[in-house]
């Protein structure tokens, strides 16, 4: 219950230093990535500002380094730190966007299926089960492939981020639908819903005003977990070369580009984006874990 424990929120949060740390990390990364154009020391993808002479410089604390490039440069002389911030921005955008899309679809399907039950429920849930039988990454691959052939190449290139959001978002709604449906089935039997029927409230009011707020807690937790999953899915797709183009690389694309040089000693190009991806995913997971316990009074 979000309302009940306003003052308990900080108490419970501060009792878990790792969650505080994760939350701060998320905030820091979100801020840094959102304001990348102002925060980043360089504009890594502007050919006018990069020089090939600066290529493959190691991080600043190593020999042969250049203090302008804190985390070194890649083979084209781009600043790794700046590329990470710009790339993280794309990863976060895709993660948040995809989860927002999944949540909206999942909430709608789950509420409708759970509230009406019967045939509606059966049809919607069978569709969900069929989709659940395919791994999300496969669905994302499929959608990506279809859109690539359906759209003109230049449109596809500029619309990389929205396409990723669409692909990953459509792949992830089933979990939301299931969890919302289960909660809706519970809420539907509560007396306050019968009271809505007794007052004669129309169905959409009953669902939106009365059921929806009461099924949001588990959705919140799942959404945070799914952000991490979506970021990883995006990274995987980009790593496979199906995601964002190299002119506008996400973290996954950076890792892919850097991985070719890993064994020639130029480790910083791949390790730093990799660590950032890892931190993002773990931080979201830890915060989601805490939120699940916090929202479940029985575990406290």
């Amino acid at each position, binding site marked *: 219950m979000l309302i009940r424990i306003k003052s308990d929120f900080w108490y419970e949060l501060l009792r878990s230093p790792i969650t505080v740390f994760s939350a701060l990390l998320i905030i820091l990364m979100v801020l840094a990535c959102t304001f990348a154009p102002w925060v980043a020391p360089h504009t890594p993808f502007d050919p006018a500002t990069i020089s090939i002479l600066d290529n493959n410089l190691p991080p600043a604390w190593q020999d042969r380094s250049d203090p302008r490039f804190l985390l070194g440069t890649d083979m084209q002389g781009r600043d790794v730190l700046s590329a990470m911030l710009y790339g993280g921005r794309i990863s976060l955008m895709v993660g948040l966007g995809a989860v927002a899309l999944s949540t909206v679809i999942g909430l709608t399907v789950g509420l409708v299926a759970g509230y009406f039950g019967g045939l509606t429920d059966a049809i919607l849930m069978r569709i969900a089960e069929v989709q659940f039988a395919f791994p999300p990454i496969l669905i994302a691959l499929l959608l990506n492939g279809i859109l690539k052939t359906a759209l003109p190449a230049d449109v596809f290139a500029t619309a990389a981020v929205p396409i990723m959001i669409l692909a990953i978002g459509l792949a992830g709604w089933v979990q939301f639908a299931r969890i919302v449906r289960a909660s809706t089935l519970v809420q539907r039997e509560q*007396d306050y819903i019968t009271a809505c029927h007794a007052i004669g409230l129309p169905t959409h009011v009953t669902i939106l*005003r009365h059921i929806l707020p009461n099924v949001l807690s588990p959705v919140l937790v799942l959404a945070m977990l799914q952000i991490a999953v979506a970021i990883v899915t995006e990274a995987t797709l980009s790593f496979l070369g199906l995601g964002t183009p190299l002119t506008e690389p996400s973290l996954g694309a950076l890792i892919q580009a850097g991985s070719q040089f890993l064994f020639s000693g130029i480790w910083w190009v791949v390790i730093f984006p990799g660590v950032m991806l890892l931190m993002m995913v773990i931080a979201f997971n830890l915060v989601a874990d805490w939120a699940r316990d916090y929202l479940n009074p029985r575990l406290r």
Partner: protein
Amino acid sequence: MTDPLLKIEDLQITFPHRRGDFIAVQGFELTLNKGEIVGLIGESGAGKSTVGNAVIGLLSPPGRVTSGQILLDGQDLTELTAHRLAALRGRRIGMIFQDPMTSLNPLMTVGQQLAQSISILRKMPMRQARAEAARRLSDVGISDAKNRMDQYPHEFSGGMRQRVVIALALAGDPDLLIADEPTTALDVSVQKQVLDLIKDICRERALGVILVTHDMGVIAETADRVCVMRHGKLVETGDTQKVLAHPTADYTTRLIAAIPSITEREDRFRNPEPRTGDIDKWLLQAHDREEEGHFLNTTDLVKEFPAKGVSFGIRQPPFRAVDVPQIQIARGEVLGLVGESGSGKSTLGRLLTGLLPITQGSVTYTDHGDISAFRRAAPRKAFRRDVQVVFQDPYSSLNSRLRVDRILAEPIRFHGLASRSQTPRLVAALLERVGLSAEDGRKYPHQFSGGQRQRICIARALAVRPRFILCDEPTSALDVSIQADMLALLMELRRSLGLTMLFVSHDLAVVRQVSDRVAVMRKGKIVELKEAETLFQSPEHEYTRHLLSTAPRVEGHRPSNTAASTRKAIQ
């Protein structure tokens, strides 16, 4: 006189909390001899279960005994290690829990559970333990115990299950038995059997029994002595008969006076002073001209629920939950509907108010016609405005995410009964009308107690200016003192507003206090329906007589038995 079996001295139990410790029990004392039943009575939050849990060492963390002693045969239980205490559980102290469904393992047969306990506690080989288990099951009144041992808990009825739980509690031949609300989840007629069993066992085996309950009737029927608790403190203690007949503490007097009588209709519920405030005028608006005659009528009402599962291609016949040829409710009448759990009384209530679809037959309101024949939204909306419901569970009947003023404003606005600017004033007036304050509108439901929540539910039902209210066990989840206030409020509203009511309850005493006519339901059928006084004084049907005879009574506690003294006690 030998030493007492159990002696509790100056017990204090504390639940530490970061906003200051909560002292759940303070200065509690109790002496229990062998072969004696001591009742612990109190309202919710009185700390009575906490005492029981402390004795058996099962306080839920972080609660702990902070001072005092619990002496079992002279041995202080509060000083024992968790390990030593665990060894005492089952062997010296047995426990019976409230809900027999959740205190048995649903995946093990009854025989396995009992034999396992016996085998562990009495160090017997399993084969011998099984034979012993069968003997013990028949001891607690389970016939054909040999065969029923191989059944699972769900194949037993509630009362039978509680008998199994009792057998389990006795598996290690304890000297002390703690029964925590052992019959609260059971029907009245079964309750008596279970209490009699506990009584018999206590006498036969010279057990000491602590009976924790909120029900004065249970105490009156069972306990030799009683301890009355309130806010964690012992209010009064003494022989049950003496305490009931001549309570010395003020609180006990009020507690006993609040219990509705089953033998007569009390004046406090019969003739409340009608009120005529502004809000009452608003509530009566557009209802001044009403026709004579009955309010609603049914013909051949049937409700069937499809049976689950198909076996060998043959569909099971549907379960007939309600089968009522005819029932009429007169305008301004309160019809009481009593029955045990599963009798279909709640289902009938919901059929009559259009909250469940009807399988066969029809429900016809004089003002609205057949309620399953609405074709358009307008007449259906008009019907919904006239017919409202108050539910049993005040916790699930309010949306916890909405503020109280929004909960009350919603029906007013939806039915267009007041403009947006007038609504807040009406909401405040409604809250005050049901005994809350206008400021309470700015709170959320969880900030209220059960009784206050029930008042909010009543206010919500009133918000559409209804003519008919279905009260579905409206007081069953409430403490007895709050129950009396709630009944008084409902009766006053009914008189002030001329409401028609269907009052569903399993509690005969409550029904007697509020009803003009009473219908007794059993297995979906109405077995007897007549004027309340006639029904309670000279019940005709065998089942009605059975219900009346098994209802627990608190007798001899109304010294002067006049309405005036009772009313004073309530205030």
